[in-house]
Each structure stands twice: as structure tokens, then as C-alpha cells.
């Protein structure tokens, strides 16, 4: 199935959809570690955004922290611009339950009050558990169940469909 997914053409589609909604002088972009940062780097470059790319590690904001603890490798979030009043494109690789996006929004608001946040993802695989939807998605797999979709990278970027392992949830 993943043979059908050409990540570079998916990214081109995202760039096409994003371009009319972006002002390269004003719009800022934030990628969510790890896959979201890879996607954001490609988009940021293609769109020619002037503001340096932001990176978000949402480990301290996860809603399942008290069940599963801390991710073994936490990276430092880095937002190298003033969030207040800014139009932001939030980028992740795969949108599934929506919990990561909720955590990311909470963290962004601890940096300031953005004018707007637009969500762009490579894959929206459905199965949302929260009222979160992507404004831009290169691939929509509504109704796909089981297994895990994972972006491997950073070079080259490959989108993989992993068969469901017992008890594993993305």
C-alpha cells in the first residue's frame, strides 16, 4: 500500500494548498517533533517563509502523562518568534486521535496568543477522538482502522503502514 504514497508529491500538494493562505513575510510555521518537524522543514523551505521555523515537543503536555509517563527522549521546544498576534501554520505528520494537536495548542498558548492557527498534516487517518480537524491534509484516509501509519526520515521521507500490533495505539 505504501508503494502508492510518494511523499514528495504529497508535499507538493500541501504546498499548493497552503500557498494562497500564506503571507511569506508574516506567516510563521511550527512543526511537532519528530515527523511534523520533517514535514514542516520541507514546507517552510518550499513556501519561502521568512520567519524561522518553530519546533514543538509536546511531552510535558500529553494528556496520558499520568498513565504512561514521560517519553524517553524529550527535546526542547523552540519557538524563535513572538507568537502574539501571529498567523501560525501548525504541522504534523499524521493526524489520528487529535490529542497531540490539543497538547500542541495548549503549549503554543503558553508562548502567547496567536492571531490564528491553521493545521496542516501529511495524513489525516480518521479516528478523531476530539473536535480537531486538519485544514490541509495531503491524504485523507477516513475510516481506516487498525495498524499504524508512520513517517520515516528525515532523508528520504517514507510513509509506512505498519500492521496492528496487539495493544499498540499510535
Amino acid at each position, binding site marked *: 500500500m505504501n508503494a502508492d504514497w510518494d511523499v514528495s508529491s504529497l508535499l507538493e500538494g500541501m504546498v499548493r494548498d497552503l500557498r494562497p493562505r500564506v503571507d511569506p513575510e508574516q506567516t510563521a510555521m511550527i512543526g511537532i517533533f519528530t515527523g511534523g518537524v520533517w514535514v514542516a522543514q520541507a514546507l517552510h523551505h518550499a513556501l519561502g517563509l521568512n520567519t524561522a521555523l518553530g519546533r514543538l*515537543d509536546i*511531552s*510535558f*503536555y500529553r494528556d496520558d*502523562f*499520568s*498513565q*504512561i*509517563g*514521560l*517519553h*524517553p*527522549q*524529550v*527535546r*526542547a*521546544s*523552540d519557538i524563535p518568534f513572538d507568537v502574539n498576534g501571529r498567523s501560525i501554520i501548525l504541522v504534523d505528520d499524521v493526524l489520528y486521535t487529535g490529542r497531540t494537536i490539543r497538547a500542541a495548542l*495548549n*503549549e503554543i*498558548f*503558553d*508562548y*502567547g496568543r496567536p492571531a490564528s492557527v491553521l493545521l496542516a498534516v501529511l495524513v489525516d487517518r480518521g479516528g478523531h477522538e476530539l473536535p480537531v480537524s486538519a485544514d490541509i491534509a495531503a491524504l485523507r484516509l477516513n475510516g481506516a482502522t487498525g495498524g*499504524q501509519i508512520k513517517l520515516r526520515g528525515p532523508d528520504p521521507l517514507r510513509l509506512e503502514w505498519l500492521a496492528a500490533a496487539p495493544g*499498540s*495505539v*499510535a
Partner: protein
Amino acid sequence: MSLQTFRLGDGNPQYDTQGRLRHLLSTEGLRERDLLQILDTAESFLSIAQRSVKKTPTLRGKTIVNLFFENSTRTRSTFELAAKRLSADVLNIAASTSSTSKGESLIDTVDNLMAMQVDGFVIRHPEAGAAHLIARHLGDSALVINAGDGQHAHPTQALLDVFTIRRLAGPIEGRVVAIVGDILHSRVARSQIHALSILGCPEIRVIGPRTLVPKELASLGVHVYHDLQAGLRGVDVICALRLQKERMESHRLPSLDEFHRRFGLTPERLQWAQPHALVLHPGPMNRGVEIASEVADGNQAVILQQVSHGLAVRMAVLTLLAGAAGGGESHA
């Protein structure tokens, strides 16, 4: 186990049966990967202090008790702030106002607090082994962090020191570190030595008068010097220790002046070490005794950075211990 019989090597209940770090009691016996995870996680918390909202929701709904049987400003306030920045609720209990002065035992005090559904204890106590005693008593039911027990251990101080060295002097595997002063009475020195050796420090030196350096240190692979000039030669990092004036009643030193003349860090003596050697001090400083003001306020001193780093390191320790309480290291 009574507090009086406690000594180093009496076992280490900081890991549970599945090998998860549940309490932080000493740097001795800490696995390297756990130590590194604390330091790496602290790097992430450091940047939070630069944001407009200096808080994360990580420990929302948890209650942490600061149980301090000894005075402390820096350690207690950084632990309090660390817990608050993680959105925990904090209860501060100072021994002088607590019921222990009415004869209640340490365990009774802890049990009463547990009946209030608290989730963790940060404890400082004048007797070695106090935090271990509480950790053994509580097991998995709450986390325990040792914030200094007698002359035994002060693990978060040592962690913030190695964090500071790693950040400002580079990889510990390539640095010569000297600990100077009253080693004998110092829980900080003991915890530093264990943390440095776990991280692969190639040469750890201790420098101090014969009466203030325990002889068994050589067996830990530590190089012992009784002459400051010889000891500082080629050193990249100098960890000064507070001279425990209050513990000097046993006449181990002729006078504070004598100590300063032989072991006090002055600008001239600093030149015996490497040109840009870092100077650390856990505070509070005795200016003019173990460290001259010109050194304490000079550009090689990183004493205030240590305080900022201490906050991030304590946030990391609280997060990792509270996370382990939730059950796992495995992640989807």
C-alpha cells in the same frame, strides 16, 4: 532500620522491582541512562523559563510536600518553584512548626500527610538515611526525593552540578574536576563524586586539609591532594564546598583564617588551574573563607547559573519520578 545504623551501601530502594526509578535518594547506584535522561529532560525545561507562561500542565492535580527538618532557602524554594511550574500543588512544612517537635515520629508525620492523599515528598533531614527510611516505608505509594540527609547525600545538587559542567565546560568524559574544601562533612561532595564517576569523568580530585578529607576516598578512584597548588594544576572545573562552620566544633581546623590561607580560592590561585576553569559553589557561600569575593563575582564563577539549572533539574526529576508512578517507560 534505625537512622543511627544507616550507612552507605545499605541497599538502594530508589528502583522498584521492575527497575523503574521511583525515588531519588542518592546518586550512588544510579544507572547511567537514568542520570542522562534526567540531564536531557532538564535541557527541555530550561527553555520554559524564557516563555511568557513559565508553566506546563505535567503534574496538574498532584500534591508535593516539601518536608524540611533543616533550614534551606535555595533548595526548598527551587523545589517549590519546580513543582509549581509543573502545575503541582505544594505544601511546605518546616520542622520548627511541625508536630515532630511535639514528639511525633518521622513515619507518623509522613503517614498523616499520606492520609491527605499527597503524591510525593521532598525531604531534608539532619540524619543520614531519613529519605531512605521514608522511601522504604512508602514503597510505590508516593515518590520521595532526598534534598539532603545528614552527611550522606544531596543528589539533586550533584545533578545540577554535572548539568552545569556538561553545559558550560563540555563533555564530562574529557574534564578534570576538583572538589575543594571540607570533604568530610559534605553530602554534596559525596554525591558529586558518584555522579561524576557514573558519567565517566576521567579524573576526580579532592583537595583539602588531612583532617577534612576521609581516607577511604582513594578507594573510590578519587585522587587526594592536601596542597591546593598541586591539586589545581590542569583542572577544568573547580567545585568549591561550603565550609561547614557549624560542624567545626570537633577542632578539625585551627581557624577559618588558617583555612582561607591554605585552601581559599583567590584570583591568584585560580590561575593554577586551566585558564578558563569553571568555579562552582553549591551555596550558601562563606565569602572570604572558602572563596574570595573576587572569585565568587568573577567571570569564571557560574554560581548563579547553577541556581537556574537547579530549577530545571528538579523539574526533570519530579517529572520523571511522577511519570514512572504512572506505570511505564514503554511508549507507542
